[in-house]
């Protein structure tokens, strides 16, 4: 039965053998030999050490292609021309759905034709040895980024393959990514992943784990994102994870983003066991981008400014080609350098924004109420509580496609552009918090001379891709049109 308890050794072995049987490359995984391989890596490739000891925010892009040689040259470009501090390897969609045969077909097609038959690196199909070739070919540490609800085999192979950081978690890679996976199943699957990370950690090979903070990537209220991070962090810590990077996706309001990143770090340190080293990662805007590279650079610039003021441990950068999907490697490197320039110009300025403390207090209080409701729903057990709280809507994520969540909560921006909760549905927060949000939204409604309505939500979703932050009813005070006119909107974005 599902519990937030450490998987016993015997059960771990049994699942491990089981999981490794799912694809031929699983057979090559040997834990002891893998520990030796990790021990052979230089200090500069120890992900947790590099991240936890940095004296400034480190930059990391997203990137993944099918073939090994291509992936090496892509990452070399981002390392050398983009000056990335940390590298990614993004996994293809078939692997995310555990469809290794389709991934194999795609990989073979890519090898034969040289075409992009997969949208990422099929690490399971490549297997342990080829993963190690990748790790060895680059200078910087590399993280596995994916979106896989059941990532057990992917973890077994990539951990053995030398990767020391792994994104995702049972909530954050279920609720925003799929429709029918049950939370109980994904929690069990991620307990295995986290236990495996814990097993390496106990042998001195710290595997960094990174819950996916942006969730659905669309106006997620900071308190909800943070509550999910804390709960996922707790589940991982139980399994022995000792290096946790909690994530947060930019909402675009400077004060709220700075407050949220501080709340995330503070609550992470308070809520998670002392043995866990907590770091934070800031994702540049994950919502829809303007269909124009020049305007996209403005959005990226705001991400860089925010990072410089909030000083998270890591920043995941966007590229000016975000609107059109996967960027060229040049655009990807450009996004890194634009962010770097902004970061390095602003981070020494010691900027203090008024109002951060109040906003942080509100976020912390709301997030902890949501964590409390999870614990209450599970009678003190977080694993059970997560399933139940999501089922009842006591914990909810806006725009969640998953049947495991109500997906009934709705966000809207207030008059300053901070993300508030417009529709709480069954979200279990106290009345005074609901009143605060309501008042903020009423203030905006007055400014705009309209009633609070879902129309605000719809307008806000498109606002940044339309060139502003708040979806005002009459944005056209100024000159409009030009190059953007008639181009499709970028209102919706896919998480990772």
């Amino acid at each position, binding site marked *: 039965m599902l519990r937030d308890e450490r998987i016993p050794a015997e059960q771990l072995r049994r699942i491990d053998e089981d999981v490794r049987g799912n694809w031929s490359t699983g057979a090559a995984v040997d834990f002891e030999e893998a520990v030796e391989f990790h021990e052979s890596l230089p200090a500069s490739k120890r992900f947790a050490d590099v991240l936890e000891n940095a004296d400034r925010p480190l930059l990391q892009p997203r990137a993944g292609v099918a073939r090994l040689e291509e992936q090496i040259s892509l990452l070399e470009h981002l390392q050398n021309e983009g000056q990335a501090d940390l590298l990614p390897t993004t996994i293809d969609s078939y692997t995310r759905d555990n469809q290794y045969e389709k991934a194999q077909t795609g990989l073979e097609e890519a090898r034969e034709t040289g075409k992009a038959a997969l949208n990422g690196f099929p690490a399971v199909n490549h297997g342990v040895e080829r993963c190690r070739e990748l790790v060895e070919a680059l200078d910087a540490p590399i993280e596995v980024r994916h979106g896989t609800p059941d990532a057990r085999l992917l973890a077994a192979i990539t951990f053995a393959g030398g990767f020391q950081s792994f994104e995702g978690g049972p909530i954050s890679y279920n609720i925003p990514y799929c*429709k029918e996976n049950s939370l109980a199943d994904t929690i069990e699957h991620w307990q295995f992943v986290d236990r495996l990370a814990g097993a390496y950690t106990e042998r001195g090979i710290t595997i960094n784990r990174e819950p996916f903070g942006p969730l659905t990537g669309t106006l997620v209220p900071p308190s909800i994102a943070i509550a999910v991070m804390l709960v996922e962090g707790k589940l991982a810590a139980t399994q022995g994870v000792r290096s946790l990077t909690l994530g947060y996706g930019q909402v675009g309001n400077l004060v709220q983003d700075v407050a949220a990143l501080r709340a995330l770090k503070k609550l992470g340190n308070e809520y998670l066991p002392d043995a866990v080293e907590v770091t934070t990662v800031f994702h540049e805007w994950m919502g829809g981008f303007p269909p124009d590279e020049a305007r996209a650079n403005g959005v990226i610039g705001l991400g860089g400014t925010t990072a410089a003021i909030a000083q998270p441990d890591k920043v995941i950068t966007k590229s000016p080609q975000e609107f059109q999907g996967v960027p060229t490697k040049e655009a990807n490197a450009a996004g890194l350098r634009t962010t770097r320039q902004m970061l390095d110009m602003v981070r020494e300025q010691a900027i203090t924004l008024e109002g951060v403390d109040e906003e942080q207090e509100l976020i912390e209080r709301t997030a902890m109420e949501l964590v409390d409701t999870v614990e209450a729903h599970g009678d003190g057990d977080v694993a059970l509580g997560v399933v139940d709280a999501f089922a009842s809507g006591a914990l909810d994520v806006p725009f969640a*496609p998953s*049947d495991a969540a109500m*997906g009934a909560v709705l966000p809207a921006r207030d008059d300053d552009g901070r993300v508030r909760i417009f529709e709480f549905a069954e979200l279990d927060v106290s009345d005074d918090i609901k009143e605060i949000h309501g008042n903020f939204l009423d203030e905006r409604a007055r400014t705009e001379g309209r009633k609070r309505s*879902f129309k605000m*939500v719809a307008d806000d979703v498109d606002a940044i891709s339309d060139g502003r932050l708040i979806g005002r009813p009459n944005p056209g005070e100024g000159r409009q049109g030009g190059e953007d006119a008639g181009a499709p909107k970028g*209102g919706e974005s896919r998480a990772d």
Partner: protein
Amino acid sequence: MAATVTLGVIGSDAHVVGITILEQALSAAGFEVHNLGVQTSQEEFAESAATHDADAVLVSSLYGHAEQDCRGFHETLQEAGVDTVTYIGGNLAVGQSDFEETRRTFRDMGFDRVFDSETSPEEAIRALEMDCAHSERDTERVTA
């Protein structure tokens, strides 16, 4: 009588924001909405529309594979005894092809109205009010 609408994102598409907003807008406008969410199969659309005696079926697709996902859609509806107004909207083709061409394609497949991704919920509601009022009047006349 409030018109009943079946709503969903077809195929393997997981884009949920647009349909969530549309659901809210339709409910606020007084429609009875059955939102099947993302990754909905043709059969699920048909079953829901039949069960709830829908007046309209709204299909959303944003990942560019709509043509493929909708092949045989109207046959599937017919087999389930569903003969409602059908709309489709979103990013219906990969790349920046001419939308009029895309519209013709989907009209030929049997959709009554075809919307691009720029369409506001209000436009869809206006169209529904027109089409459903009409079909209700027809119904009234027949049963009269």
